[in-house]
């Protein structure tokens, strides 16, 4: 077994290009798409803001908005970004008013205007309440706090349900992109590792090993273990790159997430052996893995959050999909801060998939004399 593993490692060192390609693609895709959506970090669409004197308080209120990421620039930069198409819309904040500058017509302009308007209205209202309280001989701060408290109580009771319980749905675009692409591209790396069993069988290497004192179980374990290590290493590299390079902390749970993703990598190894057992040759495998991987990624929520999907058939199919459970683990830990016990369900389902697919795959492979 050690010999087979060593041979695979040597082959990897001689030809690491597939691994590097898929790892690089995961990083580039997650990075580029996240950058497109969130700018330099934080959340929301980036909007350049030029702040005139006396309007600093509005700027700090705007920076707390989640939907858009308002970032300060000087007036020339603002105009240049609009002119060169780097930003669709920009904002100039004055003491008592604001200007919305539109470079390219987009639905965001109206939303940005509403957001800025709301900040101005709120601030002006609070100032007016404070002034009125002063005039009435009351404490201005207390009056404003009482006003905010009343606002937060709301006029109606509102109950929000989400997939994970009573909480509202939370979403971190960075975490989702990194997780989605890491899980998606890991399938290719693992699958192309597992298919070497088929290649070696065709080449006669497998027969040579069968005739040696090495047991068949050792042959399977060595090959599957190697594919697992390769795929898992890829996931580890991708998460580490974003952790150390882009400063994405995954809610300080990166190690826990990586450990909980072990069943995901095992499930993908098992799925690959099942596909290998069902095809007749490497060409068929290549065609099958391309179709299956992209379908799994789309249905499992690797490219977009499953919360926006309403079709019951697609949601049912997602429940059979390892990517969904992998993403549940990542989002659960990094966004909701769930512990291992709370994520036991996706972990168990992935483990079950790993056991089931491996059993069926190896049985079929032996039965069909592939």
């Amino acid at each position, binding site marked *: 077994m050690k010999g087979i593993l060593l041979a695979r490692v*040597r082959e990897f060192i001689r030809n690491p290009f597939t691994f590097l390609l898929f790892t690089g693609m995961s990083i580039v895709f997650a990075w580029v798409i996240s950058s497109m959506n969130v700018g330099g970090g934080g959340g929301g669409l980036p909007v350049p803001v030029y702040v005139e004197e006396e309007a600093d308080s509005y700027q700090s209120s705007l920076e707390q908005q989640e939907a858009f990421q308002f970032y300060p620039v000087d007036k020339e930069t603002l105009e240049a970004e609009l002119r060169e198409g780097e930003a669709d819309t920009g904002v100039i904040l004055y003491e008592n008013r604001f200007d919305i500058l539109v470079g390219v017509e987009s639905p965001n302009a109206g939303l940005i205007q509403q957001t800025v308007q709301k900040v101005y209205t709120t601030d002006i209202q609070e100032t007016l309440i404070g002034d009125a309280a002063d005039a009435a001989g009351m404490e201005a701060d207390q009056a404003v706090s009482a006003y905010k408290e009343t606002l937060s109580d709301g006029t109606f009771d509102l109950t929000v349900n989400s997939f994970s319980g009573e909480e509202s749905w939370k979403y971190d675009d960075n975490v989702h992109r990194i997780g989605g692409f890491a899980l998606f591209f890991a399938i290719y790396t693992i699958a192309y590792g597992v298919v070497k069993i088929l290649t070696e069988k065709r080449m*006669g290497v497998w027969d040579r090993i069968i005739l040696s004192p090495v047991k068949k179980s050792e042959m399977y374990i060595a090959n599957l273990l190697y594919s697992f290590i390769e795929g898992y290493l890829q996931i580890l590299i991708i998460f580490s790159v974003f952790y150390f390079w882009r400063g994405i902390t995954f809610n300080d749970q990166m190690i826990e997430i990586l450990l909980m993703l072990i069943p995901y990598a095992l499930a993908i190894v098992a799925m690959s052996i099942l596909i290998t057992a069902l095809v007749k040759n490497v060409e068929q495998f290549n065609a099958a893995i391309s179709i299956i991987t992209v379908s799994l990624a789309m249905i499992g929520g690797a490219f977009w959050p499953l919360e926006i999907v309403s079709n019951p058939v697609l949601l049912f199919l997602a429940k059979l999909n390892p990517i969904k459970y992998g993403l549940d683990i990542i989002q659960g830990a990094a966004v909701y801060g769930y512990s291992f016990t709370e994520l036991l369900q996706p972990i168990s389902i992935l483990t079950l998939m790993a056991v089931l697919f491996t059993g069926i795959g190896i049985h079929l492979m032996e039965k069909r004399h592939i």
Partner: protein
Amino acid sequence: MLELVDISKRFKKIEAVKSLNMFIEQGEIVGLLGPNGAGKSTAISILSTLIEPTQGDVRFLKESVIKKPAPLRKAIGVVPQEIALYPQLSTEENLLFFGRIYRLKGSKLKQRVNEILELIGLTEKRKALVDSFSGGMKRRLNIGVAMLHNPQILIMDEPTVGIDPQSRSYILETVKRLNKEHQMTVVYTSHYMEEVDYLCDRIYIMDQGNLIASGTKEEIKQILSSENTISIQADRWNSKFIAQLKGHESITKVHVEGDEITLITPKEVNLFSEIISMTEEYGIALRSLHVKSPTLEDVFLHLTGRALRD
């Protein structure tokens, strides 16, 4: 030493091997000859315990090895028809890998690798990647790997397919040397009649899953003792001439290959003058006409009506 007893193998609707009986004695080179699709590779796979027969038994030292293949597997080295090597590894790394799976270790493994490199003439290429090798060099390493654990019996499945004449000659000489100097038993399959003729003490001829002849070279060629093999050579042929040959009552087989026509005729019939007058009649410029010593190819032609490479 090693026997196939009434072996049959069926793959779904195809019966690849039909009631094959075969024995191999220690120290001999046994040839398994037949065209592509004759069932040679299936027979070899059964002989080396890689596939189980549908019917029959495989015996090694009189013990059945179908359910307990370990003793036979230890005693054989198999050279598959495919290049069963890791192309991304070097010659030495391939030998070390396959040596390790045979539980060879340390200095013993290194010594054995050096011996094999010497034997297959690849010592100077020990660090070169297999991917960069010519077909002949790959074939030589393919043989070397099968020799690592010093097997008693070497089973070779078409080891010279698709290589240059020099490499082929090197491989044939190596097999001969292994047999003479190390008393190694060799089972050699090929569809090249001249290879089997050159190497083997005894021959089994297969066609379409059936064993059609077996024995020493002389015994097999005796099949044609009552017949003559006549070779006619000319620049080009006339279809009417060939049709007349095929319709001739004294000619049992006619085989046309390029500029040569081979005829099998009864020994007591002399057709020379008749053939010459026929060539004159059809305007064929005759280059040569002679009686050949029978070859294995002629025996195969006689038995099946087809050439080995058809």
